[in-house]
């Protein structure tokens, strides 16, 4: 993945590019949580800043241009979604600031909403530090990160329904392979394990997941919103 982030490398750039530490920004209205994540991630990435409110987050993200923003779903003044949308408005599309959503609740509506607004993935706040660092790395590389629950949501939302007319068949349904990959994700398989199970390369698994993410973001499938609204569950 090419990485058009400007300025970052030259500023901190003593390390060789391959080992370059990712610049991560935390957005969460709970200071304790930010402090906890900061400590946990110290060994893995550079936490370049944090913010507890939407306007502050937008201002700093636009100024700092981190590689990955960890975004709390629920915050006052519009939550993570507001941050995402406002940052998108202010940065030109070429800038690679990527967003990973974090939440204590898995309300389908919120999660799907944030993904559709442009987040590259979603994990729960109870994720272990190692897995979180992994997820950040994957998002920074342009891949998608699906927690088992998000994979389940997507499978459910894209479930084949006999009476549904599809406006755009390419976008509005999943291929069998994508469905298989999602199922394995929902069953708790790691990418490596999925690759082995399906006899494909890890890169192919990543491609499938990215395609699913794209469909999730682009599809106008009616059920997607209705389903998410109907299913206000954990």
């Amino acid at each position, binding site marked *: 993945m090419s990485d058009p982030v400007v300025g970052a490398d030259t500023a901190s750039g003593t390390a060789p590019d391959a080992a370059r530490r990712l610049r991560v920004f935390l957005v969460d209205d*709970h200071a304790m949580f930010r402090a*906890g994540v900061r400590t946990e991630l110290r060994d893995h990435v550079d936490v370049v800043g944090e913010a507890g409110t939407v306007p502050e987050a937008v201002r700093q993200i636009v100024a700092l241009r981190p590689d990955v923003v960890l975004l709390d779903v629920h915050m006052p003044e519009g939550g993570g979604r507001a941050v995402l949308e406002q940052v998108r408005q202010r940065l030109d599309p070429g800038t690679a600031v990527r967003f990973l959503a974090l939440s*204590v609740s898995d309300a389908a509506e919120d999660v799907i909403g944030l993904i559709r607004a442009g987040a590259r993935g979603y994990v729960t706040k*109870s994720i272990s530090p190692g897995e979180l660092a992994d997820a950040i790395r994957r998002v920074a590389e342009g891949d998608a990160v699906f927690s088992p629950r998000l994979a389940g949501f997507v*499978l459910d939302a894209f479930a084949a329904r006999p009476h549904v007319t599809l406006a755009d068949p390419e976008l509005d349904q999943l291929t069998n392979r994508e469905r298989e990959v999602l199922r394995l994700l*929902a*069953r708790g398989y790691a990418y490596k394990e999925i690759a082995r199970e399906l006899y494909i390369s890890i890169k192919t698994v990543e491609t499938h997941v990215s395609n699913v993410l794209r469909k999730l973001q682009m599809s106008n499938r009616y059920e997607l919103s209705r389903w998410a609204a109907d299913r206000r569950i*954990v």
Partner: protein
Amino acid sequence: MGTSGSGTLVASWKPCDDRRDDQSEDMDAVIGTPAGARDTPAAAGAAASDRERPAGAAGSPSVAPRLYREPDSRVLAGVAAGLAAHLGLPVTAVRLAFVVLLGVNGLGALLYAVFWAVLPPRPGVARARRDLAKLLLFAVLAVVVLAVRAFVADLNDATAVAGWLIALIAVGAGVIWHQVGDPDPRRRGASAGEVPGAPWLGAILTETGRRAYLLRFIGGGVLIIVGTVGLAAAYTPVGGSSVTAVLNGLLFALVALLGVALVAAPLLWRMIGVLRQEREARIREQERAEFAAMIHDQVLHTLALIQRSAPTGSDAYRLARSQERTLRGWLYRKPAGTPGQRLETALERAAAEVEDAYPVTVEVVVVGSDPADNGERIEALVAAAREAMVNAARHARVDSVSVYAEVEPDQVSVFVRDRGVGFDPGAVDPGRHGVRGSIIGRMERHGGRAEIVSSPGEGTEVRLLLPLAADRKESP
């Protein structure tokens, strides 16, 4: 005399705290009432004296002031003051006009009553006490006018009587209609505004409002009936039998009304009860939503933090986890036994039991909703899945177990997976009952099958498959 008489009568029926204020805010904007000037008595007084002056001065000059009653500068009900403000005339002239018109078959009373019934009071204005001296003055004037009129012409003229009677009906209607628009959202609080689309029901439903409502209803009703009967009597051809005929008709109508009331009363009563229950339920739901938001933002977060910092399996971790689960169950309370989510609920309950018994986290993901008619078999499936979770928790030496269930039209599958130590399924002592009986055997008894995939160091996955009877498929 009739005018002032009915006026005081009306006043006595109004609960003294009722301010009519049901006009929407945009009307306020049109009039340009200073918003801050409403609630302090001093300011209200100032506004009142403002409005004694001809219109146009108070509001913005480009917009013609709307027609309102002015309860804060009233002698009777503020009709004359309102008209004066609207027409730009001195208020005394308008009042005099009403009194003089009394002489024309009671036209003054009729007009006043109709205006009073129809005009809303100016919103946001407190009712002032009546100026008794002025009232007395105008009452005396009215008596004089009526006396003069009595000397000049025959009072028994049918049209004169009609005028008075219609005025009576208008007053009665006004008494009832004003009650309809009465609830003041600020004064009565949420209670009256709670019934959308039928604000007057709110008035019935508040305890204090109900008595006033009944009183007004009866009073207004009596006025209307007297007026109507009077009209009927006045316009029937003169003759001894006609009065009895009217009375008979009235009696008949009364009996019919009584019958209708008897039939409708229980229905009405029940409707009121249902409405009250609905309102209470809505209030409860609102409170719950507020609590839920608070708990979601604060408590769940704290619990998540504890789980992050405490080692998995420690007491603190398990306590936080189980508390979180309880709270979630309450926050996202699902209707128990919803057919579509029975599998999900059952699996989550099983996972919760395992989490409570062993130092392990069980993540449950369910896709699809289960068909309604497979209760017993679904139970067996869940029991087998639970056994698999317990095995993983006991033997795999892991922190977390993933459970994934998917409902397809023709089958239900459940996968229980851990990334633990694993084992060689071929090497398991065939005499051991655990896995064989509780998982594989149970599934086979119910027409399904179980598959255990494991190898040392690679973790274990238990795959449970339950075909659904084709003829019991749920309609999509």
